[in-house]
């Protein structure tokens, strides 16, 4: 308790960070593990002291933003772990250690259980005639990255990571209450800082990819997914089955830490999730009779196949369908930067369709500028406005063309934040809203608002570059000021007129239908 009090009362973040970072460098991995154990130990003790239920609502608790008035700062998980538990780390009885080990084993078993449950939906389609939206997928575990406020889940995560020898990424800055269940990372402190490189556990290609994700060099669910698959191909190429192991098992096991590493760098996109699911299925589907080379070849092939048909061909098909909907003298409004939409427009223009484009953009990402450059280079007439000015341009717009991050089973569209807003205003000016989305981005999740499962980007991005940024620059010192840099939002189905997919044009309410069909055909 006392120590906790000290912690919550601790001064501004940096002062707390530095020691932890310092250790991150000097401590060897073993020591770290050691310390982690300590921490868990104490946590357990603490939990025993006071009942589980009370915990999350306790003010100033390390994790778990309590409702109502927020404490000044959230102590990032590992740092406080380290900060808290050095001194006791020295003396320690064998018994305690043993006890821990036992506890650990139990936990592992428990985890295995959950893993099984989790993997069922992936397996589910294998069973013929069974629609995927049956019980199993309902009991599907809530992903860790949306329950940061639940210490139990966090501990589970931490445990899992450390078993996989993946460092846990510290949260950054104070979070908005409403989003206290999400991670908030800082771009300036990537995961790799706390890793010994070359890492034994993680394939260098994956590390690179992870960095690219966390630094925001790779954006857009398509790009991210493609990159991921490329990396996996390389991983498989370099993989060799250790003796007395079965490829189909071991490879999956090997991939797991990679995935959770990437997940730490930046929560997986739906597209990536689906791709991974597919890959796992492929691997586990391998017949044990195959020789290693054949197996690897087979996997390589299936990955290529996936990329080809699910992404490239799909895009082609979509741009074909969309072309029917784009006519001369149209004024088309696009938002942000969607590779699919860009491609569609360029194709349409190449096919001699004379239309104008209005590119809408929003801080802090300003991806629209990218779109703008591409389209202009192709020779398309463009207009560029900020999202706040849409109600000025909309009267002249004839169609709104939007990309999507994922299509959820209840028909709502998950996409770059701002998309829903544009759909809303377009409705007010009764301009039809079209969404382009490949079917491989469809997922069984359902979601009704933009809060439950979302992603927080680096809050520092909101600070205005140049002289304008003066006000916000030292927001961390200001206890009652929060910066919210949301990544996605959810557009309710009634705001979307139609979805263009590689299977043709469908109303977005019939997403579950598509999912069912897909699963059956697989």
């Amino acid at each position: 308790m006392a120590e906790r009090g000290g912690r919550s009362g601790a001064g501004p973040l940096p002062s707390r960070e530095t020691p932890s970072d310092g250790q991150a460098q000097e401590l060897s991995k073993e020591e770290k593990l050691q310390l982690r154990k300590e921490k868990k130990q104490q946590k357990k003790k603490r939990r025993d002291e006071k009942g589980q239920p009370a915990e999350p609502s306790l003010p100033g608790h390390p994790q778990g933003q309590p409702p109502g008035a927020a404490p000044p700062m959230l102590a990032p998980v590992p740092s406080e772990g380290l900060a808290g538990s050095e001194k006791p780390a020295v003396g320690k009885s064998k018994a305690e250690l043993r006890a821990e080990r036992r506890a650990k084993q139990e936990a592992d078993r428990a985890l295995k259980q959950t893993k099984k449950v989790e993997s069922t939906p992936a397996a589910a389609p294998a069973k013929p005639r069974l629609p995927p939206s049956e019980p199993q997928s309902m009991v599907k575990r809530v992903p860790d990255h949306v329950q940061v406020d639940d210490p139990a889940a966090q501990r589970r995560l931490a445990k899992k990571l450390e078993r996989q020898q993946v460092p846990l990424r510290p949260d950054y800055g104070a979070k908005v209450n409403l989003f206290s269940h999400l991670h908030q990372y800082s771009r300036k402190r990537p995961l790799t800082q706390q890793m010994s490189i070359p890492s034994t556990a993680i394939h260098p290609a994956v590390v690179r990819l992870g960095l690219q994700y966390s630094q925001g060099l790779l954006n857009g669910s398509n790009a991210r997914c493609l990159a991921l698959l490329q990396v996996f191909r390389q991983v498989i190429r370099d993989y060799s089955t250790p003796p007395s192991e079965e490829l189909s098992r071991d490879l999956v096991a090997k991939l797991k830490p990679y995935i959770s590493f990437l997940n730490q760098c930046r929560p997986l996109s739906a597209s990536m999730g689906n791709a991974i699911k597919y890959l796992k299925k492929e691997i586990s589907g391998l017949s044990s009779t195959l020789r290693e080379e054949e197996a690897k070849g087979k996997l390589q092939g299936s990955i290529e196949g996936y990329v080809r048909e699910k992404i490239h061909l799909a895009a082609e098909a979509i741009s074909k369908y969309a072309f029917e909907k784009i006519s001369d003298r149209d004024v088309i409004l696009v938002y942000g930067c969607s590779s699919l939409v860009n491609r569609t427009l360029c194709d349409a223009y190449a096919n001699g369709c004379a239309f104008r484009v209005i590119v809408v953009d929003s801080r802090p990402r300003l991806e629209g500028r990218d779109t703008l450059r591409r389209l202009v280079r192709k020779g398309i007439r463009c207009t560029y406005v900020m999202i706040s000015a849409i109600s000025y341009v909309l009267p002249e717009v004839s169609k709104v063309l939007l990309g999507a991050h994922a299509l959820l089973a209840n028909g709502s569209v998950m996409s770059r934040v701002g998309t829903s807003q544009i759909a809303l205003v377009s409705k007010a000016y009764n301009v039809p809203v079209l969404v382009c989305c490949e079917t491989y981005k469809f997922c069984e999740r359902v979601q009704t608002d933009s809060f439950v499962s979302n992603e927080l980007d680096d809050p520092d991005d909101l600070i205005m570059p140049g002289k304008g940024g003066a006000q916000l620059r030292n927001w961390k010192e200001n206890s009652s000021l929060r910066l919210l840099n949301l990544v996605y939002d959810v557009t309710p189905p009634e705001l979307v007129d139609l979805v263009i997919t590689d299977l043709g044009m469908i109303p977005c309410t019939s997403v579950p239908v598509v999912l069912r069909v897909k699963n059956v055909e697989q």
Partner: protein
Amino acid sequence: MPGAPEKESGLSEQIEAFVARLKRGGERLSSEEAARQTVGLLRKIIGHGRWGNAGDLMVLIRKEGKRMTVAQPSETTVGNMVRRVLKIIREEYGRLRGRSEESDQQESLHKLLTSGGLSEDFSTPYPPLRANVIEAISELLIELEGTTDNIAMQALEHIHSNEVIMTIGYSRTVEAFLKEAARKRKFHVIVAECAPFCQGHEMAVRLSKEEIETTVMSDAAIFAVMSRVNKVIIGTKTILANGALIAVSGTHTLALAAKHHSTPLIVCAPMFKLSPQFPNEEDSFYKFVSPQEVLPFTEGEILSKINVHCPVFDYVPPELITLFISNIGGNAPSYIYRLMSELYHPDDHEL
């Protein structure tokens, strides 16, 4: 009077400077200042100007007023103040003529039926008119001083504890309003930053200084977050005769989002922002600044091939607004027309 000429030249220089400032986009000139300066100048004009009777005075005011108004159409308060002054002149003149108040109200069916003579003339000179008018104007100035506080006073009637309030950009009135409420109650404010100028940042910082829990977010997130908001409280540039707003761009989106989640939208605006114009000449209300704000010049060659727009204001139709809070209390948009007719004389609607 002695020294009149140089007084006048000095005055005309002041007017010149004011007009010039307005033309240059009125560097961060708040509406309240604009109003006060306008009234101040007009008072000077009345004080030093050469005029015999109410008639020529009104002509004079109209002339100068017009120049100030056209200098920056988006700054409607200037025009409003000119109209107020004209109204004052009419009233004072009427009083001197010994006409009772209500007989000089804007034309109505009633008047159409009853009143005898056609439009009155302002030709009869009354020596005390100058003094009276100036006095009345001074009162107007005093009224202007107090507006913000009067609005802030009502804060507690509208904000209960623990609610989540959204606002956009920066507005002195709203700032005062929220701070007032914060003295008694705890609540959470979400500020849309309002790109490209991001006045929202300033707002957020100022609020958080008062220990109000504040969150800044980009404009794109307005709709995403709206579902958790209990009230939207915004300021505005202008209230139009039909109860619509000309407010900082992004407000329309905000209002639509509020409507979609049927969240009440409250507008804090002092009376001097009421403008008897109708949204037909929208274009003149819209104000466009340099594309630089949106897309930097360094973007290079593509600039010549594209169009970049950076409107400063939005038009928000009245049906999206729940309530107006002005320095004289709360009103529904449907009642704005009445306030208008009390503030301005119909003949002055176009200067």
